């Protein structure tokens, strides 16, 4: 690579919606707007300086609502990792001069379903139209009784457990570990500490996943404002520099993954991000891995290369990702305990930004570098970002 985005762009504003959880009075559009207004306040920018907009909804809707006429757009929509990928695209656009100040905004009425126009990915059997669904999942998966991510995302996990010796206890320990983080996060929906028995006693949703191994379903949003690194110190908050970026796709139909025990897209996107950042795994102080279900941090730790094949379950169960552990992970409690509107990637980024700024609710001491890994659809897509609070090494 002759050129890279490393240190060229910084996040200067970042915020979530004023409230998270069950918000029946907020439409999808309003959740975008609320988060955006909060991000604008976070950096104190004049909204008219925003000249680039990325969203998974039609960017024109948000632009016109805000009274902004952008000169750069991105509408990448590959599930919950889309916002990580949009940050990557925004950084590239800023580095190329296509725009100067970009907004990446997200809002989703995943719980209350106010103004949601598209069915959730993989939700075809539960939606009205399975008999007219000509997609590959519609023809080759929905017919077998799939109904959204809980019946699809973990399709390979029993295979993974057999091949690696990973246990049900280790899978459940993901939920236990993350609750140790959210226990001190006031905005988290689930904060009570839990044990392995609590996980096993929770309702079976889709074997081998109990309720506590499945993400929450909530309403909320978030927004991020990026600009050139040279301008980053003009804003009140400590800049968060983009060190590395990556993206990839694998398959729109989870039963056709190349290897059901590993995410090819995780490997490709994270490798790009590590290479661009010029860091090794030991340089990562803080890690977010999109956890729609408990197996995702396990796949992620291995596919990103933090641990070897089959080691992630024990690594988590032994406390390495818990408070006080050597690799703090999903420190807001994750999709399992913090919030999950359906497209969680924005919230993973927000927590990584808070940790790098030093303003997280359950702050890890001395975070300089955070790695944030997103997944979209059911192992359909991936995005990776590396953040740092230092302008250069």
């Amino acid at each position: 690579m002759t050129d890279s985005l490393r240190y060229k762009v910084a996040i200067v504003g970042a915020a979530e919606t004023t409230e998270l959880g069950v918000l029946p009075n907020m439409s999808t559009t309003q959740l975008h707007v609320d988060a955006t207004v909060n991000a604008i306040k976070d950096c104190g920018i004049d909204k008219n300086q925003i000249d680039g907009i990325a969203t998974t909804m039609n960017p024109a809707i948000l632009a016109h609502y805000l009274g902004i006429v952008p000169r750069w757009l991105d509408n990448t929509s590959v599930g919950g990792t889309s916002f990580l990928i949009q940050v990557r695209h925004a950084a590239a656009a800023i580095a190329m001069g296509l725009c100067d100040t970009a907004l990446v905004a997200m809002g989703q009425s995943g719980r209350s379903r106010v103004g949601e126009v598209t069915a959730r990915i993989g939700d075809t059997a539960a939606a009205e139209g399975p008999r007219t669904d000509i997609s590959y999942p519609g023809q080759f998966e929905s017919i077998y009784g799939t109904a959204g991510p809980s019946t699809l995302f973990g399709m390979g996990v029993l295979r993974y457990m057999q091949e690696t010796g990973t246990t049900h206890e280790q899978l459940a320990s993901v939920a236990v570990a993350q609750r140790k983080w959210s226990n001190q996060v006031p905005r988290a929906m689930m904060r009570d500490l839990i044990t392995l028995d609590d996980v096993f006693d929770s309702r079976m949703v889709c074997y081998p996943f109990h309720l506590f191994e499945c993400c929450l379903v909530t309403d909320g949003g978030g927004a991020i404002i990026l600009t050139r690194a040279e301008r980053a110190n003009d804003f009140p908050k400590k800049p968060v520099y983009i060190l590395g970026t990556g993206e990839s796709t694998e398959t729109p139909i989870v039963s056709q993954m190349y290897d059901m025990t590993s995410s090819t897209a995780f490997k490709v996107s994270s490798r790009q991000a590590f290479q661009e950042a010029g860091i090794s795994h030991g340089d990562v102080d803080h890690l977010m891995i999109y956890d729609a279900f408990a197996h995702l941090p396990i796949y992620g730790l291995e596919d990103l290369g933090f641990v070897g094949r089959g080691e992630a379950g024990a690594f988590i169960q032994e406390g390495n990702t818990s408070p006080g552990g050597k690799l703090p992970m999903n420190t807001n409690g994750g999709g399992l305990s913090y919030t999950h509107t359906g497209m969680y990637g924005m919230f993973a980024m927000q927590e990584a930004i808070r940790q790098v700024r030093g303003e997280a609710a359950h702050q890890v001491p001395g975070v300089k570098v955070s790695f944030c890994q997103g997944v979209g659809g059911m192992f359909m897509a991936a995005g990776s970002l590396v953040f740092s609070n230092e302008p250069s090494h």
Partner: protein
Amino acid sequence: MSQERYRKPVPVPTPETQFFWDKCKEHELWIQRCHVCQHVFFYPRFHCPQCLSDDVPWFKASGKAILWSYMINHRPVPGFEEDTPYAIAVVQLEEGPRMMSNIVGVDNTPENLVLDMPLEVTFEDATEEIAIPKFKPASSDW
């Protein structure tokens, strides 16, 4: 075939998949093998995903498979209420490709569903035009 209306989702074939579903209606499982690079693949496509050749003839699969992985859904889904809890499985065909399916002819419990168990295809008639390939425990190890 049940006289009651089939209430589970029914596939809507597209030009790429029509031949597959036509053969299913005859209770035969057909997949494709690239004539150029010999790659065997599923789901149906007009091009080989390995070499992009459009010379991708169909052949009849043996119908033998092993249980690759699965989940057991405990929440009722329209059309599947009476089956709940039921397994949504991925099987690996003898020829190599994997496909999603249901496992019939055995109670869908973790004790009964052992990975790598031998299976064979069977078909569930859904409509006059559509039969769904499903898998049942093999009558003998293959």
